């Protein structure tokens, strides 16, 4: 599997070439949100709104009313947390075509609690009219723009940046409301999103060798969350359902799956892996995924717990799984 760098930076410029209605807003994080090339290429469609996010969100809502599609770029926390009322009243209520690109989801930054968007999916999926998407690989990042732009209403996108793997073939593009079904097993249904999917794939590679039959589902649309193909896989799981998300276990993917299970009558056990209802702190991604149980070994232990069996899989064995050229070497996310 290849590793690509600055996928959004390049893709956005190519994609927006023949879309004059698309304008880009920056909240003083142009380099950090991969829009420097857009600024250079289309200076007339790039607008600096500074460190004033409440104004930026309402400004975007106003501009969308007059036919433009603002692509607002900043760290996720400065949108959904700092300017939630502006998102609700200036964008979501009037159902405006604003695309919000939220960077540094979950524990993807050593910037600590002020920079970590741990409950953005949970908060934003309660907003009527809002569509919530999440990217987990280069193909997701490349195709999310088309998915978002087809929505007649506001869209929030959890973005990954810098060096990201291509987990899915470039031709298999993200689709609104359709999860990627990576395998169709009958012991465990494993539902993951964002960066957790790659980590989970390390574990599933070894678990399957031990004879565990897994349905692995990669979710890219958190709202609307009603894909019948997902419900079908949940119903097929004999031992239980496990969710794994770079988000608190309250309100995000785990809750989405719980709601779907309840509503479709799936009565097996649900185990939710994620940030366990706590604020996080500043450290490397590799350190934090271990601390909060978002790594492959935590998933193996969860599967063992659900199936009440041991599979003898070690951390060393998981580390040897080579999904991509990416070595997992610690790479500090620059602010």
């Amino acid at each position, binding site marked *: 599997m290849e590793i690509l760098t600055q996928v959004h930076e390049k893709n956005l410029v190519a994609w927006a070439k023949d879309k004059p209605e698309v304008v880009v807003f920056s909240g003083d994080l142009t380099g950090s949100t991969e829009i420097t090339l857009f600024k250079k290429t289309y200076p007339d469609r790039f*607008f*600096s*709104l*500074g460190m*004033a996010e*409440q*104004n*930026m*969100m*309402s*400004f*975007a*809502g*106003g*501009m*969308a*009313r*007059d*036919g*433009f599609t*603002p692509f607002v770029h900043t760290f996720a926390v400065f949108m959904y947390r700092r300017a939630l*009322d*502006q998102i609700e*009243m*200036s964008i979501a*209520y*009037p*159902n405006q075509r604003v695309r919000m690109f939220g960077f540094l989801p979950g524990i993807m930054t050593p910037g600590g609690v002020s920079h970590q968007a741990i409950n953005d999916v949970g908060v934003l999926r309660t907003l*009527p*009219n809002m569509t919530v998407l999440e990217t987990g690989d280069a193909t997701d990042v490349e195709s999310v723009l088309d998915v978002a732009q087809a929505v*007649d*209403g506001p869209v929030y996108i959890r973005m990954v940046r810098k060096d990201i793997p291509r987990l899915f073939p470039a031709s298999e593009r993200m689709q609104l409301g359709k999860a990627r079904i990576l395998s169709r097993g009958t012991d465990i249904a494993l539902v993951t999103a964002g960066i957790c999917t790659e980590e989970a794939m390390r574990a599933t590679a070894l678990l399957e060798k031990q004879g565990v039959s897994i349905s692995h589902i990669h979710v890219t649309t958190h709202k609307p969350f009603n894909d019948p193909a997902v419900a079908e896989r949940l119903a097929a799981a004999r031992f239980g359902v496990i969710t794994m998300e770079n988000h608190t276990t309250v309100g995000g993917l785990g809750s989405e799956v719980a709601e779907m299970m309840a509503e479709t009558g799936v009565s097996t056990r649900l185990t939710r892996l994620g940030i366990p209802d706590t604020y996080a702190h500043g450290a490397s991604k590799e350190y934090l995924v271990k601390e909060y149980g978002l790594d492959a070994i935590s998933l193996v232990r969860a599967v063992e717990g659900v199936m009440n069996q041991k599979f003898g899989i070690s951390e060393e064995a998981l580390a040897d799984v080579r999904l991509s050229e990416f070595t997992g070497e610690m790479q500090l996310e620059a602010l």
Partner: protein
Amino acid sequence: MALDTQTTTWVDEARRVAAGIRRRALELTIEQNGCYLSQALSSADILAVLYTRVLNIGPSAAPLTPPPFPGVPRPGHHPLGADYNGPREPGSDRLLLSAAHYAVAIYAALVETGRMAPEALFEFNQDGSSVEMIGAEHSPGMELTTGSFGQALSQAAGIALARRLKGETGKVWVFMSDGECEEGQTYEAVQALAHHRLDNVHVYIDVNGQQVDGLTKDVMNIEPLADRFAAFGAEVVTVDGHDLEALEAAARTEHTGKPLVILCYTDTARGIPLLEDRKPNLHYVRFKNDEEIARYREFLAGM
């Protein structure tokens, strides 16, 4: 010196409209035993000048009798209270109400200028009506949803930037209250308007000096307002908010490269001196007993 007959005509008309706004707001306050009356009294002259003289807008594109609540905005459905302010044309002005609590004043102004049926005003705050107490964008005369304060000016900036990019010549007018000047977003918006040189934005602010808990000077001082707006990059004019000709002249202030802010100092009891006794608790006026209602009825009969 000969009087400009044209000028005389619009001032007379604006005076009539302003008086009508005050009369209708009082009538509604009596009939429904409660209304945002003081806001209508302080802003009546500003809105009258906007609707009769300043705004370059076409005739209403909406039914005289507003339809019932049409549902919230959703894909394929954008309710346009703005249709009462005329069809959306590249050369037409847009009026954005920031202080949604002034809804009654806007509705009364629409009635006085023939854009809404007089009977429709009595649908105010009735269940199922779009003539809501604190309106939203389905309510007559409202383009935005602004009951959460300080957001309209930022939205106006977005609209103004879009209009500039499209080469539209119509202006964007925002009507704000002074309480909103306590919101930090107001100054973020002025900063952005100035930074992006959005001089197609014009703001009338009703500085009536009053908010829910009392006088703004006691609750949270906002002065010196003119200095504050100027410091963030606006061209600022200060006028007597009940002087029709001054209100009109202010709109013609040169402000190339800057948004124009017109601070209109007003009186919340203007036109109904009986209310002086209740100051500063005038945010929402409800009469206490039959005797008081009778006094106001008598006053109304003379308006």
